[in-house]
């Protein structure tokens, strides 16, 4: 579970101080599906990066699964990113010189998993995400939808608990966008906490919990949506 208390993030632009996040309090339980919406510069991505340990708060307290994240050193943070968190980006960020399969394998290489285990998992992911005859292709030979599927496979290959998606469909056409959302929601159904930043209100409404941000503050935080089946598991064995 994610717990933010009084989180602020200040950027210095020139000699001006710009608030990325102002005094944000937020609790997200395991397995939730949360969309974060708001205008550009409202702090959506900053919030996501903060939760994903890519950015550090200037003040406040962040607990991830009970552990205090404030003041954690670089290698421990990297450790948590590797094992607990999966990122999905608008621009996919696949390594251009590597094939789809190699991109998917990359987090496991960094984690030092044995080669046999890596092969097995990559094979499984390639089949699960419908990339069977694209595995050896490089990113520039793949369509946008395929690229994002590779990116999702990479983000989930270490079996993280939290999936952070920053405009995952922002660069896709409607059909591939729908495909990607289906995959993400499917993963959420398997108890992965899903946080998704989006501009698209229609997409945002699909989430069971919707957060609106303005000027670095959470303006509204409502739990609703078409399928209301909120079942926050307090059992930490599921973590």
């Amino acid at each position, binding site marked *: 579970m994610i717990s933010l208390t009084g989180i602020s993030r200040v950027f210095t632009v020139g000699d001006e101080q710009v608030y990325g996040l102002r005094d944000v309090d937020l609790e997200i339980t395991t397995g939730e599906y949360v969309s974060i919406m708001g205008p550009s510069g409202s702090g959506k*991505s900053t919030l996501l*990066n903060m939760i*994903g340990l*890519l*950015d550090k708060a200037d003040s406040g307290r962040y*607990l991830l*699964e*009970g*552990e205090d994240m404030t003041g954690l050193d*670089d*290698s421990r*943070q*990297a*450790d*948590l*990113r*590797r*094992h*607990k968190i999966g*990122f999905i*980006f608008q*621009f996919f*960020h696949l*390594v*251009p*010189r*590597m094939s789809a399969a190699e991109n998917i394998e*990359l*987090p496991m*290489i*960094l*984690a*030092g*998993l044995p080669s046999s285990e890596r092969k097995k998992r990559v094979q499984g992911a390639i089949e699960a995400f419908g990339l069977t005859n694209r595995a050896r292709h490089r990113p520039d030979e793949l369509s946008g939808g395929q690229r994002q599927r590779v990116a999702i496979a*990479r*983000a989930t290959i*270490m079996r993280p608990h939290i999936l952070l998606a920053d405009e995952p469909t922002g660069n896709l056409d409607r059909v591939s966008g729908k495909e990607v959302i289906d995959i993400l929601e499917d993963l959420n159904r398997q108890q992965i906490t899903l946080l998704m930043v989006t501009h698209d209100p229609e997409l945002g409404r699909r989430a069971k919990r919707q957060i609106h941000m303005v000027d670095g503050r959470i303006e509204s935080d409502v739990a609703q949506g078409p399928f209301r089946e909120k079942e926050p598991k307090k059992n*930490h064995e599921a*973590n």
Partner: protein
Amino acid sequence: MLPRGHFAKKSQKKIMKLIDIIRFAVRAATGYPTRTMLLLLAMAIGAGSVVVLSTLGDGARNYVINQFSSLGSNLLIVLPGRSETVGGPPPLLGITPRDLTLDDAMALLRSSAIRYVAPISVGAAPVSRGRLEREVSILGSTPDLIYIRRLAMAGGQFLPEGDITRAASVCVLGYKIKQELFGSSSALGEMVRIGDRRFRILGVLAEKGQSIGMDMGDIVVIPVASAQALFNTASLFRIMIEVTDRDAMARAKEQVLQTIRQRHDGEDDVTVISQDAVLATFDRIFTALTLTVAGIGAISIAVAGILIMNVMLIAVSQRRSEVGLLKAIGAPSRRIVTLFLAESAFLSTIGAVLGLLLSAVAVWAIEQVFADFPLEIPLWSLCAAVGVSVATGLLFGVLPAIRAARLDPVLSLSRR
């Protein structure tokens, strides 16, 4: 709140495997073929030049040593004056050394440890036959010279045995002089004019080439007394001595010094050098020379290192989003440093290996052109080339690697 142990157990300290680090670096290097080729070329030239230059230096040393060895191994050379090659401060009182004379040379022959003695007087004089005339080096000596310097005759005989104080008008021509004055016709028994005297030609030296810096083809040998008369001097340039055997060298040297001291009123005013001393001196000189040229080669490796740094810095800024991604999927900063360092190390190692191949080809080519120049790639130069290359690659890879590790992942990922 959960205990910390909950995390520690799940995320065991597993780190990226070495083989994967190498593979990643190799893939990164080969992913950009043009810049990789250029880098490899620069490094190869650097490493190759270290090997080629030190091989040439080593070859020059061997060449000189071989030249000396061809003189015969039990050689002593007596020079007028003190300590010519040993160094030390110059004499404060300005000693004027006594000249070496023919009598000194003859006195030396009485030593039991000495087999041959060849007093030598050198100078230059015009040599002419008919309308052909040229200034030539004249070497005045005795019949023993042929043994001491291992000379071979192309025809005729060498200087005749007999009283060495007699200034006979006979001479032996070097091969080249003979060709110039007589062409292909026989010179034996003919007369040439040296200075203002006429000399009868007894023989012609074989085409032997260089011998300690003196072109034995471009020389005329006459009896030492004739040379002294020709140059109007009673002194000798030096005396060459062949000792009976190697074990007698020290004894012979002592006897030479003693004899000369007696004859020169108790003054040690000559220097006796052995071939070993000369060789040791040359060895030192050429080792220094070799190291110098190898150092020049090392500079080119350093230049290649700066190129590596440049290219790696460009690579870091080109691969910002890749670095950001690596951080997002769980690479700590020091892993990023390792990956970029591994890439520079890989590039410089392969560059060095290519450089070794390049140098092997270059040395082979030089050998084809200068067949009698003994070339052998010294082992230490191979090690030095590879060592310096890899060290340079790592050294100049540090800055780009650190810069990559310091990239802010949020900023790096915010662009495509």
